[in-house]
């Protein structure tokens, strides 16, 4: 079996920052596994600005922020201390630190001395709320719609209702509007938004998009494609006020109701997430959004650099 000092799983900001920091702290045999065809992770689809204000003291887009890290990785790659393997999908992790991954034409098992998991997070779905009604085409998670517009160049819908007023929902309200779609409402069950103030102002208020607080989607209606949603106000205990129900016609529902760390591989190894970046198995670390869901890529980068250092120190100790 191939042996490595350190394997980093995930080539987004967390994985890249952790790998770079491990290198700077003395680790010279690092395998960075990224399942996509490019490094950068979700930053690649975040083409809006607001990244890097803390870390790089500049206002960058997501791809620009990623590029700063990619350039550093490439510079190091020259002396082969960090090997980047793209289209590499980890299918198994064991408590003895064996990583199994697939890439086109290859099924590899690698023994590592230390592992940093930087697998990011996934979006909560309509089914987790759960919203009853029909199950037609036209219901997307906000991140999927963002990928369709920004990466693929597709327009998923023309009349949109957004559920949830977190940052991704707000940013997508503006994105759809700029692409010529009509965002008919952002519906938030809480009494205020979880999103950044700048996003409420710049993404919703500036475009006169109605933002309904203390409202929820009661039902999604549509046979083949979404036709409308039924909206209802709720009281402070989140109980519905049936007399307030009204319909909004739309062809698309965007679900932006939070993120969950992707920790299935860590669970598979029988480990649990502990204090900052550590797990119950010494030498297996977790950083970035797979450790906890962060608001800013800058904070992810900062804390993931710590994970790289923690792994380097662990490797010196053993």
């Amino acid at each position, binding site marked *: 079996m191939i042996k490595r000092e350190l394997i980093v799983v995930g080539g987004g900001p967390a994985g890249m920052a952790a790998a770079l920091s491990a290198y700077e702290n003395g680790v010279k045999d690092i395998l960075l596994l990224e*399942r996509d065809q490019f490094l950068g992770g979700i930053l690649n689809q975040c083409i809006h600005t607001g990244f890097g204000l803390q870390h790089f003291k500049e206002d960058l887009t997501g791809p620009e922020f990623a590029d700063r890290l990619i350039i550093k990785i490439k510079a190091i790659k020259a002396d082969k201390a960090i090997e980047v393997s793209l*289209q590499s*999908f980890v*299918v198994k992790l064991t408590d003895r630190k064996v990583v199994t991954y*697939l*890439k*086109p*034409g*290859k*099924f590899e098992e690698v023994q590592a001395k230390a592992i940093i998991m930087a697998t990011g997070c*996934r*979006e909560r*779905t*309509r*089914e*987790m709320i*759960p919203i*009853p*009604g*029909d*199950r*037609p*085409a*036209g219901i997307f*998670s906000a*991140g*999927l719609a963002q*990928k*369709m517009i920004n*990466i*693929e*160049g*597709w*327009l*998923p*819908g*023309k009349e949109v209702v957004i559920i949830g007023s977190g940052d991704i929902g707000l940013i997508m309200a503006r994105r759809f509007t700029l692409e010529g779609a009509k965002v008919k409402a952002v519906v938030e069950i809480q009494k205020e938004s979880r999103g950044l103030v700048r996003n409420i102002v710049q993404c919703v208020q500036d475009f006169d998009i109605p933002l309904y607080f203390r409202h929820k989607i009661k*039902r999604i*209606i549509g*046979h*083949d*494609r979404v036709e409308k949603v039924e909206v209802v106000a709720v009281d402070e205990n989140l109980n519905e006020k049936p007399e307030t129900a009204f319909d909004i016609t739309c*062809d698309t529902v965007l679900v932006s109701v939070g993120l969950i760390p992707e920790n*299935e591989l860590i669970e598979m190894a029988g480990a649990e997430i502990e204090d900052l970046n550590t797990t119950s198995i010494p030498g297996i670390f977790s950083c970035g959004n797979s450790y906890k869901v962060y608001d800013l890529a800058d904070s992810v980068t900062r804390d993931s650099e710590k994970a790289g250092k923690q792994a380097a120190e662990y490797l010196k100790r053993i």
Partner: protein
Amino acid sequence: MSKYDVLIIGGGVTGTSIARELSRYKLEIAILEKEEELAFGVSKSNSGIIHPGTQNPPSSLKGKLCVQGNLLTRKIAKELGVDFKEVGELIVIFKEEDMPRLLEIKKEAEALGIPKLKIVDKKWLAKHEPNLNKDIIAALYAPSAGIKKEFGNLPRFHIGAVSDNKDPNQIFESRFVINAAGLYADEISAMVGINDFKITPRKGEEYLLDKKLAKLTNHLIFPLPSPTSNGILVIKTSDGNPMIGPTAEDQIDKQDKSTTEAGMKKVLENVQRIVPKISKDNIIAYFAGLRPVSGKDFIIRHEDKVPGFISVAGIQSPGLTAAPAIALLVVKLLKQNGLALKKKILFFHKHRKPTVHLFAMPVEKAKALTKKDPAYGDIVCRCEMVSAKEIRDAIKRGAKTLDGIKFRTRCQSGRCHGGFCTTRAMKILAEELAMPLTEVTKRGKGSEIIKESRKQ
């Protein structure tokens, strides 16, 4: 005008099972299906249960065909490479006064010829089903119940020369017509003047639980049956995720398959009584289907008023189990009414290769396969670990929509619900079928996923 020996209206589990049975003979057969893919109507919502035949009166056609179908399914599953597991079922009771009813069900089931039935006590249940409510005092155990991969039944891959005919307004002429039109069987029959039955859609909502609960129960768990259904149950599925439901509500609309808050509440209340540890938070997906109900039994008969017309109607539960037996009965009816059946010598393609899933095989074999065909190493769906190769295979086997891919491969059916893999699956589908991305649908025309594609 095309001329056929047998024309089957409806390409669900019933219609395709009949077609498969008929394809043993030298006959010209056609299936007419209104949906984009076969089995996208009533059959799409089946629970994958192969019933032993309990909960049916001994005199019923349903009961007899179910018992026979349970045996036939085992054989057909082998021929078609479909995953079938005999897991057994338990019908549980909470009170001593329900024991006579349970014994009556056992007696009726024995009269139907269902094998190896026994009443099991609290001690047996504690050992074999530790998660059941401790208030359950006994159960009827029917070991011959099984589960089948929900979408795996479809014998359509073996009907023979299946050609896709998209030409509108065609006239099909046939010596025999089989009405297997599911929810619309009454409307089809009315066209030839048969008005003695009506189909009522009976909605069933089902809720799928996280795979982490795969070991929740070891058997299919039923309550005592009610007048309209076998009750709300805890279902094992071949993919591991337990499923709970279904409800049973009659309605008028033949298209409304929405889920409701009331339905979810009812399902949860009922199953929590049987398995208390199930919670709302375990739900990862939900759906509803419509059973085509006409009275208490199946209607399978040659319509003497309209010679050559055979009704196969009211095929609700246990229709999936009974389908192979229904097919044999229909062939018998055709023969009795003058269809000559000459066996093909060489051209009945009985067997089909099972589908390949990289993680259902030993590591060494998976390694060799990935090396041989790199596309196996190209993972598209991360939650269920489905490769580009498996998606392309599914399309070659007939998938034309995202739902068609989902049912065959599980791509988009995991925890992220397609959040990560939908775009890739769409691109593969568009490429394989040489169609624009804007024409890729969820389940047929009208359910297009995107409105515009601007990048070329």
